[in-house]
């Protein structure tokens, strides 16, 4: 396999997104048009705050903290976890779907249009238990998610019109996780079995293993019809980013990557590249781009260290990259940065 390492293409002038909460910024998620950005701030003390940012290119316009509810015991966000954001287009506006949990309360999926307090998308009397991993269909009218109501995680769908819930993938003794749909509606997900996790696809009612291996093959993402995922096949804490253009085929694109907290691999808008950070301190001040066919890799230098959690989007013809990193000196918390990387793709 041939790797082309074009080190140090650009020095980034990134915008730092400031927040008042203490904690590590993680899991930046763009809206499809790149005008909204949501991310988590994790203090590692049983509390994850969720923030929404309106963006104009790499400039932030306003920053809002997302809260799950108002009043009573859930007043404010103290001690609560708000995470796993997904943007949903509702007419001209964007709404945010996310997971919310707090002590004594199951993990549920909430939604907010930023005008009203966030509310559960699915009520307890519709489906009990923990709900997680929300993801949307291409037309954004259906949400797929995981429910543990039967013990292990199964995949369900929820129709925003009619509010119907249907079981999509269920297995008796395995946990399904990380559902994601491609443009043609094929559902990608992982199934946990024993000490490992493999990637599966269900399309047209047929459920089949796409790719497996030792350890975990986890958090898959579609890039057209290619699957990109993280694998720790080489060892528990050794993570690689891998592409698979057809079932059972694997191409390791990057070894020793910095595993994001929650996010799947970030794919470029043209579906040709994946971006990731590296664990190796010598390489961690850069973000690394690999072509999905494994023919090319280059890095993008930043002014930060321990770069990770990259997330790409396209906004008004510009390619924007959000990532988290520590400053070269002086801060204990990872901050969120946004940079325009359009030139890299030209």
């Amino acid at each position, binding site marked *: 396999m041939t790797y082309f390492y074009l080190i140090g293409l650009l020095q980034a002038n990134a915008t730092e997104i400031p927040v008042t909460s203490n904690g590590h910024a993680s899991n930046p998620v763009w809206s499809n048009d790149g005008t909204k950005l949501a991310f988590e701030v994790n203090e590692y003390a049983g509390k994850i705050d969720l923030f929404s940012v309106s963006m104009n290119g790499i400039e932030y316009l306003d920053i809002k903290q997302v*809260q799950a*509810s*108002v*009043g*009573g*015991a*859930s*007043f*404010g966000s103290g001690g609560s976890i708000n995470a796993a954001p997904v943007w*949903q287009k*509702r*007419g001209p506006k964007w*709404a945010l779907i996310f997971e919310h949990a707090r002590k*004594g*309360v199951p993990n*549920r999926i909430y*939604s907010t*249009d930023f*005008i*009203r*307090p966030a*509310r*559960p*998308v699915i*009520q*307890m*009397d519709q489906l009990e238990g923990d709900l997680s991993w929300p993801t949307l269909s291409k037309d954004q*009218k259906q949400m797929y998610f995981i429910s543990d109501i039967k013990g292990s995680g199964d995949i369900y769908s929820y129709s*925003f*019109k009619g*509010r119907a819930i249907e079981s999509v993938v269920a297995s008796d003794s395995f946990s399904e996780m990380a559902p994601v749909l491609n443009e043609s509606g094929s559902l990608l997900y992982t199934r946990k079995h024993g000490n490992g996790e493999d990637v599966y696809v269900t399309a047209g009612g047929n459920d089949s293993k796409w790719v497996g291996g030792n350890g975990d093959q986890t958090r898959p993402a579609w890039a057209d019809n290619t699957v990109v995922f993280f694998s720790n096949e080489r060892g528990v804490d050794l993570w690689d980013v891998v592409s698979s253009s057809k079932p059972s085929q694997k191409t390791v694109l990057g070894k020793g990557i910095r595993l994001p907290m929650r996010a799947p691999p970030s794919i470029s808008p043209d579906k040709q590249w994946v971006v990731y950070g590296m664990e190796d301190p010598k390489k961690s001040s850069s973000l690394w781009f690999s072509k999905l066919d494994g023919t090319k890799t280059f890095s993008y230098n930043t002014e930060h260290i321990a770069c990770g959690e990259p997330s790409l989007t396209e906004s008004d013809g510009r390619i924007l990259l959000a990532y988290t990193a520590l400053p070269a000196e002086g801060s204990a918390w990872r901050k969120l940065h946004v940079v325009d990387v359009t030139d890299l793709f030209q």
Partner: protein
Amino acid sequence: MNILLLSSLLYADAQLDKAERIRLSEEIKGLEKRGRWQAIDIKYRKILELKDAQPSFRDHSIAAQASSNLGNMLATYKRVKRAYAIDQTEDLKAWFGALEQTLAPVEITVGRSFKEDFALKIQDELYEPDDQNAFAFAQKVLSKRRKFKGLLPYGEYTIGNESFTVAPVKFPEEIKELLSSAVKVKVPPPPAPPLISYMGPRFSIGGAYTGAGTPIRDLNVNAASFAGLGGRLSLGWQVHLRFGFDIFAELDVRNMMSSLGKEPLYLEEYGLTEDGTEFSGDNYFGAGLFSGVSYSIKDLDMFAGFSISQGVAEIQGIDTSTSSNYQTTCIEESRDFSVCDDNTRLQDALVMRGNITSGGLALGATYNLFSITDKLRGGLNATLGLQSDTSRTYYWGQVGLSITPFRSVKQ
């Protein structure tokens, strides 16, 4: 002493109410964690009913969440306002501000006489859970009580034949005045459909059975009973009424040509010979009116009504049991022979002609098998009639083809 006792009792009642409020509040707190919104709503209403205890800030806040999740947004607005009256937090201010920015008061009444579907519909899809909850709540209340007073999300709505728009309004300071600015929608009953939905010709043709029973009244001479086969042809008009059934009237002609199991009897000694008479057997020819109602279940039409007939019969033989004076009565046949003697063979050979006027009931069914045009369809038909002229019973039946107006095409 009495005053002291009374005040002690009042104090005890107040303490009980306060204790009950605390108990209900704790239950509400626990239910909130499990998302049991209906139960929270019920317990909050119980607190409101207590005379000497008021809901706390937390009660109002959680109850507002509950009613919001249940879709009762008017209750939500009231509860948020009550909570805000206790503690003016920015969160609550933003909350009722959001309600004022996204909802408007609506009053919908569906008339009792409105029998059509009156499901509330909205033009644009709702995605926000609060909006979906509010819409679902209004639908539920309307289907149960045919009346809804509350808050709905902005949008274009239809209910029954009415369309209306829920648009932003300025919320008054006093919640009591809120519904006075409501969009008022009344769903009147739709105009009654025309009395006649459609109509068309009705026709049938087929083989017929005609018979006459034994006379029950004495006459000088009564013809013997008879039965035979022939044909029946009917033509009429059928009208479908808005009540779901049809009325029809048809004119028919029916005859009997061949007598069943009875051959003509010729007696030469009395001048009655096969060559010397036109009589060739019992026969009947008549015309009539059949009118009634018809009801359809899919392809099967069932009909019933009254029928009257006027006919001419020529019958051989007399019924001696009811012909009290046949021996002294002379009946002129074409050959002018007399029957004024006691001769059994002669009684069987006598030919009587006469008019029959009878009325009664008829019923039948048609199984429609094919369409002739987009307004007419045809099928197999069977009809039975039972009539009387007060002297005896006449019965008839028909099996044949029929054509009726096609019910699925309205004219």
